[in-house]
């Protein structure tokens, strides 16, 4: 399928000299559900601002829907919908009028617009409050209204900047189901940014992990996890143990068959390996050899957080995976609660 977004070596340097986006390149085919995963300040919002014609890029080339960003920004504005990270609704207007005005800005009018607005109010479950002023809405309702506003003109491409940040789990699940439907049933290309690993894992078919303005990994969530090894072994260690034996342990772990990488985490070590379950016994022997007792050894399928940890050397959110790992037992469940 044709590419909806083509970004080639995009650079965005802010007035103060900060490089918010540092040579990013990627392609998003039409109909894709594409995600940008990264921590706060990684350059996700800046990328969206450039692609949605809000911010002038410093350098690089961008084509959206076959239209060049520099030459035809208006052409791009007609085919995109944008939900910004800050929830932006006009509190003085009713939910319905918010959507009608948004439609007007996209040159829609008359019965076509009215029908579309009704449809979106139904879809977002805002029908009952449609004629109330938006300032009376709850945070989740405002968020849904701003999502509806981005969709009024049936854009071929939507940019969603952290669409579920600040939502309760129930609202988040609702938004997820709207977005899946939008992508699968209407064929809308979705470009989403998130700092939630679970969200990226669940929604995105293709993913780029971005950190400090650079893409550090790209692929489908499954591929990315596969790439770092089939499984992870999480070793929780007493932080006070001597660096000597600890170093020796790391060296011997790396030498085990099938071990891809050994990464230091906050509360111990994470070992990435194929068929990790077969290594547990050997690892226990290793510990005895160097004279250290692990606080726990647990086994988990890798998560996107592991991908992130491997690619950037830090976790997206500090410590959840290891500290939240199951008690010392050999279990096959996915570790880590996000």
């Amino acid at each position, binding site marked *: 399928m044709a590419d909806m977004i083509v970004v080639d070596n995009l650079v965005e340097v802010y007035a103060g000299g900060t490089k918010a986006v540092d040579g990013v390149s990627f392609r998003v085919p039409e109909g894709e559900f594409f995600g940008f995963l990264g921590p706060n300040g990684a350059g996700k919002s800046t990328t969206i601002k450039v692609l949605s*014609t809000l911010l002038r890029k410093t350098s690089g080339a961008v084509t959206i829907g076959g239209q060049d960003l520099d030459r035809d920004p*208006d052409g791009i504005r007609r085919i995109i919908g944008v939900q*910004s990270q800050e929830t*932006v609704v*006009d509190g003085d*207007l009713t939910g319905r009028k918010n959507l009608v*005005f948004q439609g*007007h*800005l*996209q040159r829609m009018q008359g019965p076509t617009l009215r029908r579309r607005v009704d449809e979106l109010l139904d879809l977002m479950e805002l029908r009952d409050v449609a004629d109330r002023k938006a300032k009376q809405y709850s945070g989740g309702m405002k968020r849904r209204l701003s999502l509806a506003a981005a969709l009024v003109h049936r854009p071929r491409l939507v940019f969603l900047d952290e669409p579920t940040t600040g939502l309760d789990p129930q609202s988040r699940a609702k938004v997820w189901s709207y977005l899946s439907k939008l992508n699968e049933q209407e064929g809308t290309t979705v470009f989403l940014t998130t700092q939630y690993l679970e969200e990226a894992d669940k929604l995105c078919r293709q993913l780029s992990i971005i950190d400090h303005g650079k893409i550090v990994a790209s692929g489908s969530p499954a591929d990315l996890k596969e790439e770092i090894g089939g499984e992870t072994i999480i070793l929780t260690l007493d932080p006070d143990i001597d660096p000597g034996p600890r170093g020796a342990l790391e060296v011997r772990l790396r030498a085990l068959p099938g071990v891809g990488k050994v990464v230091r985490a906050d509360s111990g070590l994470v070992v990435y390996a194929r068929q990790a379950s077969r290594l547990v016994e050997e690892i226990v022997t290793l510990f005895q050899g160097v004279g250290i007792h692990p606080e726990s050894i647990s086994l988990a399928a890798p998560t996107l957080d592991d991908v992130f940890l491997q690619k950037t050397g830090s976790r997206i959110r500090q410590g959840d995976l290891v500290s939240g790992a199951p008690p010392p037992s050999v279990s096959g469940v996915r570790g880590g609660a996000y």
Partner: protein
Amino acid sequence: MTALQSLQDVWYVFGRAQSKFFGSPVRIFFQLFGALMFLVLFTQLFSKLSDLPGFPTVGYLEIAVGGILFINTLNNTMQSANAIVDELNTGYLANMLVTPVRRTAILLGRVLSDGVRFVLQTTVVLGIAVLLGATFATGVPGILVIYLIVVGFGVAWSGLTLTVGLATKSNETVAVIGTLLTFPLMFTSTALLPVSYMPAWMQTVSEYNPISYMANAARTLMVSGFDGTVLLQAFAVIGLILLLTWSSTLWLFKRIVS
């Protein structure tokens, strides 16, 4: 096609601003109350003034109405600036900028909506003045010219508060500068008193005060008749302010939106 499109965009932005205003009874009330307040306070406070020797043969009401129209206008020109600064800071402006809407329509639609409010408050002031017994020497044509001057001056002066707002992105600054300007302009102009009742230095200041030209024009239309020179001066002042404030506003706005 594109000209039509631009007009349509202005119309939509105007429509939104109107819905916001007319959807809020509190705002309407304060708008009209504000317009009335000055009329009532000043004409009551100074009602005995017309007894003074040498005062024009008409009552103080006729003298004051022309000035009060513009004091109200000064007080209301901050609204466009406040709205745009809010939209800039909340991200609503960005929300509009990712659509194909014409950039200048975002400003013009808003200012046009202020124009409606200027007309509204002028109607209230003139209406009450008539109820209180004021007469209009130039009749309906003169009243229409008064509307034109009020709206023209209002739009021109909005450019000043918009410039402050777009340059500072702060509504506090808009309010401080707006208020700081309003009072000196009001009291050093001929808005509330005929020029002969002012001390010499204020007479000099009032000659450079745009409000004097506005008030004189409206007052002349009310009490004596069409005076070409006075009207020409008023429109020249409006044109000059319009040119200065709107070229800076448009320059700042283009810098922000591109």
